[in-house]
């Protein structure tokens, strides 16, 4: 990058907000998906909306592509820098600007950590509902980009349900506002389009969130089944009985073993474990819990436990949330997959995964958000064994094809990013993708904002799905993710 441009950028962020030395830039060359790496020319750390605007205006004038970055915990390469581009980190814009309890709104900057929103409002019995498992390290801005989910989105919805308004710096540097504190603001639902656009439509600099009153009670039940098929049948039973639990999670035996080894959650050793959480008024929850218990029993549950205390409940969740990182206990390397199927296709897809797994001679551990059909198969392998890494990548990719064939999706919450853009044309037809591109052109005619993501380009050499590497905080047991 030309020195004059670098100088101009440095002046905008007051010197301290620019990183350009190769040693320091290494931190930013990838996100949570570490097999894709691109070195940015520079990293800018603005501390205000005005600074973001000024940086983006320079990029626009000089035609420099830019990638916005939150905490860098994404699992699809969404925050991967682009060639000859810069990274704009929003980490310093981390203030909770306003909490408005009467209207159940909070206004935050993009660098605010997800869990910090709840931490700020819980004294008044409120919480921020979207709970991606990286919530103790991931940022709200990143959640907006990815439309992050979490275990409780079954009942509460995704990030997009909880983002009512946005202040956005468009790729030409202009500042616009989408949505607002009131509902049904006039015009197109641009906030709805922006959330989940993976940084390709601009940079959010302020976010209006909906916050939620804590329910009167929360009850968590653990049920052990002979296999995931019986556990799946119990989930169908719960849905057919007209219940909408706060969360329904499922783990297979391999995932249980790993979680046990990692955090000693005291899970029963079984073929399929179900975790059902109900919340709401006590009388309502207790009535429904009796029903859930009965449904699990009639579907073959050998053991059913209800967490007796908050501590027990926390332990149950800890085991589930630690599942990805726990794989390190039972396998040297592994790939985290994220696919979605109609929930009823579960037995069929599971047996197909089993077949693929046997054919490849590789183990697959399964962790699901069972209520909404979001699968996280973990493909285990050993890089030291020649050919295993390639076999694992093929297996992981084939699992996604199963999801598409079952009428599902290639991603439920991790995003397309760099990792899955080649799968997009298997899920969408050309006119579908062209229409999305036309919408993108309205926001970013010069294609400067995270330009190489989401949409398929001809397959490049060395493009491959990637191994999972736990975030340092995750390995230290300070954070987990789904």
């Amino acid at each position, binding site marked *: 990058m030309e020195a004059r441009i670098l100088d101009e950028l440095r002046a905008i962020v007051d010197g301290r907000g620019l990183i350009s030395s190769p040693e320091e830039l290494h931190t930013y060359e990838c996100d949570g998906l570490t097999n894709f790496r691109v070195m940015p020319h520079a990293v800018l750390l603005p501390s205000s909306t005005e600074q973001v605007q000024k940086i983006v205006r320079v990029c626009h004038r000089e035609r420099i592509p830019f990638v916005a970055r939150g905490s860098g915990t994404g699992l699809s390469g969404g925050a991967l820098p682009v060639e000859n581009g810069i990274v704009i980190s929003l980490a310093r814009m981390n203030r909770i600007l306003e909490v408005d309890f009467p209207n159940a709104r909070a206004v935050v900057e993009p660098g605010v950590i997800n869990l910090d929103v709840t931490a700020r409002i819980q004294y008044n019995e409120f919480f921020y509902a979207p709970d991606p498992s990286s919530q103790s390290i991931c940022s709200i801005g990143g959640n907006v980009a990815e439309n992050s989910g979490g275990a409780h989105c079954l009942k509460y919805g995704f990030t997009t349900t909880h983002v009512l308004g946005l202040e956005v710096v468009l790729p030409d540097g202009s500042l*616009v506002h989408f949505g607002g504190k009131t509902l049904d603001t006039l015009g197109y639902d641009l906030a*709805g389009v922006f959330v989940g656009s993976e940084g390709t439509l601009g940079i959010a600099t302020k976010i209006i969130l909906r916050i939620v009153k804590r*329910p009167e009670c929360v009850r968590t039940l653990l049920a052990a089944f002979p296999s995931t098929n019986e556990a799946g049948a119990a989930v169908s039973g719960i849905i057919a009985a*007209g219940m909408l639990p706060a969360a329904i999670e499922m783990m297979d035996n391999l995932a249980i073993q790993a979680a046990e080894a990692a955090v000693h959650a005291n899970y029963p050793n079984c073929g399929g474990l179900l975790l059902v959480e109900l919340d709401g008024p006590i*009388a309502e929850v207790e009535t429904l819990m009796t029903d859930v218990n009965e449904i699990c029993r009639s579907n073959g549950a050998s053991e059913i436990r209800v967490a007796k205390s908050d501590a027990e409940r926390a332990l149950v969740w800890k085991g589930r949330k630690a599942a990805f990182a726990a794989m390190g206990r039972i396998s040297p390397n592994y790939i985290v997959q994220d696919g979605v199927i109609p929930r009823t296709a579960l037995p069929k897809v599971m047996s197909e995964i089993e077949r693929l797994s046997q054919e490849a001679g590789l183990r697959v551990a399964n962790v699901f958000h069972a209520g909404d059909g979001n699968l996280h198969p973990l493909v285990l392998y050993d890089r030291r064994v020649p050919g295993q890494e390639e076999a694992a990548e093929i297996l992981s990719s084939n699992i996604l094809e199963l999801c598409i064939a079952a009428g599902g*999706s290639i991603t*439920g919450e991790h995003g*397309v990013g760099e990792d899955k853009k080649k799968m997009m044309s298997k899920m*969408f037809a050309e006119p*579908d993708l062209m229409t999305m591109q036309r919408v993108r052109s309205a926001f970013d005619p010069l294609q400067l904002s995270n330009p190489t993501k989401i949409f398929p380009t001809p397959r490049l050499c060395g493009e491959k799905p990637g191994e999972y590497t736990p975030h340092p905080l995750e390995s230290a047991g300070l954070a987990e993710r789904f």
Partner: protein
Amino acid sequence: MDAATQSQSTTLHSSFRYKLISFLGPDHVHAAAPADAVAGVQPKMIVAPGNERELAEVLRLSNEAGLAVIPRGGATKLAWGNPPSRADLILSTARLNEITEHAWADLTVSVEAGCTVQRMQETLAQHGQRLALDPLWPEKATVGGVLSANDSGALRLRFGALRDLIIGVTLALPDGTLASSGGKVVKNVAGYDLPKLATGAFGTLGIITRAVFRLHPLPRLTRSFSVATATAEETRRFIHAVQNSKLAHTSLQARFESGAAAEVDVLFEGTEAGLRAQETHLKDLTETAGVSEASPEIWNARQSLWSSLKPESTALAKFTVLPAEIEKSMETIAKSARARHLEWKGVAQATGIGWLRLEGGAKDLRVSLQELREQFERGTGSLLVLHRPAAMPSIDAWGDAGDALPLMKAVKQQLDPKNTLNPGRFVGGI
């Protein structure tokens, strides 16, 4: 229009009409009657394609011929928005009315745009499910129309709006493209969320031909309660007490009108034991006014604002305010209406969305609507005029769309560059 242009346009219409008849058959292309006028603008013909490919082709041909197209479902809300700047063709979705798939065990439904909401709900109810939405005139309103107008009722407090319920959409664009986005599963972040872009776009970007929704179970039991409040302060205290409690109510609305005290309604859904406990809890919250069990009919209050409408002396509007300011909005309305000698009647929902009927002189209505819009916009809200007497001095149906308007126009330009769809009906002249 001078005589030469008029004759040119007539020739264009008749040759175009011939083209459509040869494509769709004579039964599905008709001359428009006076009753088909759109907010006072008379279109020339009505076309009813039989499937989405035909619909996309008719749209493409119209676009190519430079004709303005007005998409139409059940026509229940066709008068909302500004009058079209041009209207040549009504494109009816009446024949696209199939429920393609009710995957009840997956809690989803795929449905064509022309299906009425009621028929869809009846089908879903066979498996104890529903689209958790209570729109206006469900027996006539179609899926496509309700989506385009983004209509929602009191259930929104618990289940969200259509933007939160739609998971997939297929759109026909003016260039003939049929584009799908989203999918058939509830959790899906692949690609842009165009179902949300189409929702509330008033048919100005493309014509919705199909949608996929996430469903909810029908409630086991429901109970409704009403409280008559004597003063504005009492109304405020009651609403705040309910909203700040741990009650899990599904809906809350305040009904208010000239010459009567406001009533607040609360809806609960759940099991018998759960409902009994919530009833006790609700009764404990009220210090003065008594809580009485109410008929489910009270939830028709919004729709009944349109009953026995006197079109020449009535205005209807939707307004939005902050959720904690609905009582204040009721006072603002009363004050403005009283000053102009207007009668008023309204419903304000706990989400901060309200519906208002004003009656009186045309000029007074105009002044009051403008004044209310200014006041609500000052507090980040809005006022959307849904009906006004023909004699009332004209007023923009929408109001201020904010600083994103140029971007909205850019989106419109990308998808409908010739301004074929519903020209001039949406915000900021879109």
